[in-house]
């Protein structure tokens, strides 16, 4: 029996939605699969919770082999891995996060552009990571688009794009700043997702949730360093692939459970839930400028291919994106 040492790590702690399944599904699954044959055992060297690197460095950490397997937040890699961020530039596609996992597990393995982009960054994509759907948590309900006029909302990163032409001003921030921002009137709400809002208790100061369904987003992937992965014995590679499938399922279930629990707990704590009427949602969707444009300019032909493949997959999975961002490709 041969022992293989694997360094596994993340910038976020083990309870985090993107790390949870690494520790609680991926590692035990690899162990279990390898134990069946009894040829190999793994000595896991864990470096979770940012002991080795920060969230800004998740790509470099796996790429450079600081860890052999790690959580890679492509959402923070707009410069080096822009293709993976297609969902953030195509809002209102689907709120079904499990669908996003399925689509990106498939595309990351089989669409040359995405697969190569992982390979160019010296990584092998194992399992997709996502967020649940984005909604508006605010001090006010949103019944019509006019309600957003002259409001200030926390909308960090790409999500600032989603507020264009709505009359609302996006204010930068992070999950950790929403609470005080809203409490003090710096902002009046935020674009965010249930599994993120629950632990930060933002619902205490923003008790009106308007379900918009801006959509579930592809956040990144669990990936292995390519040199490391290529050097693994074939049975271990197979174990990795199989464990990754189980990890994707576990991640989807975990986020679903957490989002459901969040809704129950937040409503028990006084959160009122509203639904943005369909015609108002349509106004928002059609009113948005062509926010995919700068992304297409940056990514060129590869971007076009990825966008088309993503939207084809969405429709094949039965989703009806509210805006055909792939139109005219």
């Amino acid at each position, binding site marked *: 029996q041969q022992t293989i040492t694997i360094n596994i790590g993340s910038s976020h702690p083990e309870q985090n939605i993107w790390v949870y399944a690494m520790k609680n599904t991926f590692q035990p699954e690899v162990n279990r699969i390898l134990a069946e044959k009894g040829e190999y055992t793994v000595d896991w060297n864990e470096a979770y919770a940012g002991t080795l690197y920060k969230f800004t460095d998740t790509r470099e950490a796996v790429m450079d082999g600081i860890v052999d397997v790690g959580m890679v937040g492509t959402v923070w890699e707009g410069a*080096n891995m822009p293709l993976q961020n297609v969902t953030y530039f195509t809002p209102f596609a689907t709120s079904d996060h499990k669908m996003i996992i399925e689509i990106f597990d498939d595309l990351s393995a089989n669409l040359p552009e995405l697969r190569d982009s992982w390979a160019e960054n010296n990584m092998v994509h194992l399992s997709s990571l996502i967020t649940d759907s984005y909604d508006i948590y605010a001090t006010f309900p949103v019944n019509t688009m006019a309600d957003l006029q002259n409001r200030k909302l926390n909308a960090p*990163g790409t999500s600032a794009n989603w507020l264009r032409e709505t009359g609302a*001003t*996006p204010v*930068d921030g992070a999950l950790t700043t929403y609470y005080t921002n809203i409490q003090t009137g710096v902002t009046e709400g935020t674009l965010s997702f249930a599994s993120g809002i629950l632990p930060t208790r933002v619902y205490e100061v923003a008790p009106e949730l308007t379900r918009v369904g801006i959509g579930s987003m592809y956040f990144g992937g669990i990936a292995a360093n390519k040199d490391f992965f290529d050097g693994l014995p074939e049975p271990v590679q197979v174990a990795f692939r199989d464990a990754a499938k189980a990890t994707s399922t576990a991640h989807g279930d975990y986020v679903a459970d957490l989002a459901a629990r969040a809704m129950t707990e937040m409503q028990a704590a006084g959160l009122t839930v509203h639904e943005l009427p369909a015609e108002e949602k349509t106004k928002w969707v059609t009113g948005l400028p062509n926010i995919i444009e700068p992304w297409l300019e940056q990514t060129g032909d590869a971007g076009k291919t990825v966008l088309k493949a993503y939207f084809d997959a969405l429709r094949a999975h039965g989703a009806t994106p509210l805006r055909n961002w792939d139109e005219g490709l």
Partner: protein
Amino acid sequence: MTDQTTEVPDDGTIPSFSRAPVGAMLGVVAACLSSVGTLWIGGLMALVVADVLGRNFLNAPITGVSEIAGRSVVAIVFLQVSAAVLQKRLTRADFLLRAIGGGNPRGAHVLECAFALTGAVVFALVLWASWPKTWEALATGEFFGVQGVFTIPTFPFRLITVVGAGLASLCSLYRAACEIRALKGGGV
């Protein structure tokens, strides 16, 4: 920590060119970089204030302040570190060293020289480690921020790290040379 034999006075003023040409050149370059860093701190304050005022009174928050401020902190360090090396302002516990220097000034110079060389090695390592990514960033047009919202190239920031670390390494070497000269001259 007073060392009368070195050409670079401890108050951080630059030695005259005729007395110490290398020290003068390094001192001038370090002082220039350091001044940029100093101005940058003022800019950082102005940026934060403008964001707070803009957000609260003008309904015009500045996008990306937190990312820019974060990157600025790193830039400020590498812009100013060379001057700190020349002025011997880096934090240390020098009680034992001074005790040694009291009884055996040559021993103290040897230690000081070793430490300065360590500094030169450390900054050279930083330079060596940062070099490839810097040019990679230039070649790939790496940026931080968000496409369509705001983007700022990372190359200038990476270049500051490389230049700052390189100059700090030279300054450390110069300090080591000063210690050796003091050792040879037996100056106390």
